[in-house]
């Protein structure tokens, strides 16, 4: 097999000493970048990009993609320890990761998250290795209507699969859509809902909102509960890692499901964010312990992490094969490729074989290196949980404020963050779910763009969403997922009523 020998040659390139050094350096830098909210993968890669101009392209892309892996791993750390997602795709990790940390299982949660990341990323790389050309041509079948159908699928699965009060999910979702609409509308080119403010023109940056809703909101809640930090007795030795690993095979179905969801979303390109939410939503619905999700279930950490990383990795595929970046970090990497004079696109696999296979080989090795490095740091990070809350809270607040400011160097964003902190607190108090709001904020405007692009092309006819097998298939699956929850709930309710009626009869 031609590709396989190319891959082996790639390993040879990636395994040289200086490239391994770059890999380790990249992963460590990436973790640092991923831990600081607001700095994030794309910025980290962008800042370091100029440093790589003097290197040969293969070493440079190995360094940069290792930063990417490191950031992917690092995003989970703050999500679990402080309920602050360092990256957009770590939001779903907070739902169960943070409760686990509070209950003293921070080390287990971190191990689960890192291992899941590794499994997810590995499945993505395998996909890239073996089916790159095939998948690339499949991605070309996605026009605006198909994109909209993918987003619809994500939203529907969230509403239909959710176990929270559905009216509350939809309310939260709608607030998210409303917030997503602020700023420049890319279809008409007009500004919307900015009320003449130049600050609002940028719209609500997703990360600022998330730092507020989750990070600040959580601090307010904890402060109200009386300044205790419940995770004092977190066990911190490396044996936890092995114990956690021993429990993982039990969740194979969740892992496989999340891998599939992630690879699908990464290629299509719905992206890592949508994938992490869908992975979590599906696991919650189909797990035996689904009702316990949100209270610190290890499966609730595994599912979104696996999906996010499978997607994040698969997202590099359309970038290399088609030149369209699947994520923001991928976009910066793409810029890097161009600077080195490499033109991503169908010809890259033909003309720059060494480079492409060196990169793919470095994905295997970079991930492995990443896993080893992050697992070694588990005790260190888990130890943070032992520090009393009254010391940690001000630090978190400062880190949040710096993060919010850094995203676009705007003081206004710090106020936005505090505002959303209060909103997050109110949501928690009233028992409204935050996740649908976040999901709608991230994907809302993209879904809207795709919907309107599709209608522009069809001269306003809705038939475009039924036009071919792919789009109608997606729409049907979306509707099934939407109705699945309500219908199964209704059947269950009916069943209960029958039983209680029977019981009543028997009692007579």
């Amino acid at each position, binding site marked *: 097999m031609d590709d396989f020998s190319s891959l082996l040659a790639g390993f040879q390139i990636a395994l040289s000493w200086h490239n391994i050094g770059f890999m380790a350096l990249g992963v460590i830098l990436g973790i640092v970048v991923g831990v600081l909210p607001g700095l994030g993968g794309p910025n980290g890669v962008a800042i370091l990009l100029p440093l790589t101009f003097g290197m040969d392209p293969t070493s440079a892309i190995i360094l940069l993609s290792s930063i990417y892996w490191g950031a992917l791993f690092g995003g989970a750390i703050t999500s679990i320890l402080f309920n602050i997602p360092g990256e957009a795709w770590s939001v779903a990790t907070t739902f169960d990761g943070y409760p686990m940390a509070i209950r003293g299982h921070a080390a287990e949660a971190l191990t689960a998250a890192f291992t899941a990341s590794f499994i997810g990323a590995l499945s993505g790389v395998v996909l890239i290795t073996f089916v790159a050309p095939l998948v690339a041509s499949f991605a070309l079948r996605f*026009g605006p209507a198909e994109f909209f159908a993918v987003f619809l699928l994500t939203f529907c699965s969230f509403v239909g699969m959710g176990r929270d009060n559905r009216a509350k999910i939809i309310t939260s979702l709608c607030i998210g859509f409303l917030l997503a609409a602020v700023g420049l509308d890319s279809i008409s080119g007009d500004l919307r809902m900015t009320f003449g403010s*130049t600050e609002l023109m940028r719209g609500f940056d997703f990360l600022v909102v998330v730092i507020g809703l989750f990070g600040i909101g959580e601090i307010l809640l904890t402060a109200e509960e009386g300044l205790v930090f419940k995770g004092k007795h977190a066990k911190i030795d490396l044996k936890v890692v092995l114990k956690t690993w021993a429990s993982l095979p039990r969740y194979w179905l969740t892992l496989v499901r999340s891998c599939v969801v992630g690879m699908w979303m990464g290629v299509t390109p719905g992206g890592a964010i949508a994938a992490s939410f869908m992975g979590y939503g599906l696991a919650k619905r189909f797990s035996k312990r689904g009702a316990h999700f949100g209270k610190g279930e290890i499966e609730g950490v595994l599912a979104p992490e696996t999906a996010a990383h499978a997607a994040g990795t698969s997202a590099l595929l359309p970038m290399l094969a088609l*030149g369209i970046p699947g994520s923001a970090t991928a976009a910066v990497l*793409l810029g890097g490729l161009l600077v080195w004079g490499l033109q991503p696109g169908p010809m890259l696999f033909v003309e720059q074989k060494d480079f492409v296979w060196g990169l793919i080989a470095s994905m295997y090795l970079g991930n492995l290196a990443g896993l080893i490095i992050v697992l070694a740091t588990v005790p260190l990070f888990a130890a943070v949980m032992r520090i009393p809350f009254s010391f940690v809270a001000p630090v978190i607040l400062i880190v949040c404020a710096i993060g919010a400011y850094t995203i676009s160097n705007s003081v206004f964003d710090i106020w936005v963050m505090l505002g959303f902190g209060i909103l997050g607190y109110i949501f928690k108090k009233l028992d409204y779910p935050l996740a649908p709001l976040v999901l709608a904020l991230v994907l809302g405007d993209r879904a809207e763009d795709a919907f309107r692009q599709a209608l*522009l092309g069809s001269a306003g006819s809705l038939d475009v969403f039924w036009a071919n097998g792919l789009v109608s298939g997606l729409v049907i699956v979306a509707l099934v997922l939407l109705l699945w929850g309500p219908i199964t709930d209704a059947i269950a309710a009916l069943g209960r009523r029958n039983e209680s009626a029977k019981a009543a009869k028997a009692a007579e």
Partner: protein
Amino acid sequence: MKMHWLAVPFVTAALASAAPALAWEPTKPIEIVVPFSAGGASDQMARTIQGIIQKHQLTTQPIIVINKPAAGGAEGMLDIQKSAGDPHKLITTSSGIFMTPMATKLPLNWTDYTPVAMMAQDSFVLWVNAKSPHKTAGDFMEAAKKASPPLKIGGTSSKREDNLIVFAMEKQIGAKFAYIPYTSGGQASTQLSGGHVEANTNNPAEDLANWRGGATRPICVFADQPMVYRDKVTENASWADIPTCTSQGLNVSYQMLRGMFMPGKVTKDQQAFYVNMFKKVSETQEWKDYLARNALVGDYRDGEAFVSFLKADEEKHARLMSEAGFMAK
């Protein structure tokens, strides 16, 4: 650093003798603000310039590229507006410097900035899918007249360059197109190679990868003269082989400036430093390679030549935008 008091006069004397070469030099890192997202054509240009400046050591200070893409580039432009008097900031610009304020009514005006240099002009090309039956602009226009629903043309953003070109084509042939705005030229190119639109009006660089990969094909360039680059970019064609649209009966030509500005209220010396620096950049081999690779029209201007170009270009855009009804009310 501790220094003997006797040494001080000598050091100052040495510095003083070196200084007159340049009246002003940057004293901290220089930021290049790119009002578009990473990976796009403006971003590529900024990063190429960054590489050239560092390689040739045209300044002692590091160069940092920052993307501020929100609101169609208005975010970056507002940033420069607010940084009046800051000599360590630059912004890359395109025709958006006129069009964004016109389309949004934002309080922005290029005359509040300090023009540094125009680096190049970018062309626009009519691209179709490689399997498209249309061979010339004539075929395409005939098809457009008969099409119902209208033919779909993809481009970047709404009420911007691509949209203006499509509007001009509509006016020429008296038929409607369905213009579909995408967020980047890369997306427009992918959508074309997937057959989701019938054509796009991308810059040469934006569709190069798919052209070389055999997925898309250029029909004509929206210019009065064909492009000058004769080196083969695909197996059997060069940029110069693409005919002009005018020669095929489609009388639309449009080019877009790519240049550099500083914030307002900087001193003449500060402006002169950057003019000098970009002039040197434009003379390097790396820059010429970059122009050829992206099929840009090399057109370096500074000083009065740049300002008069800007004035004429602004008038042209004001006319085109109001004809098309793209002006904000």
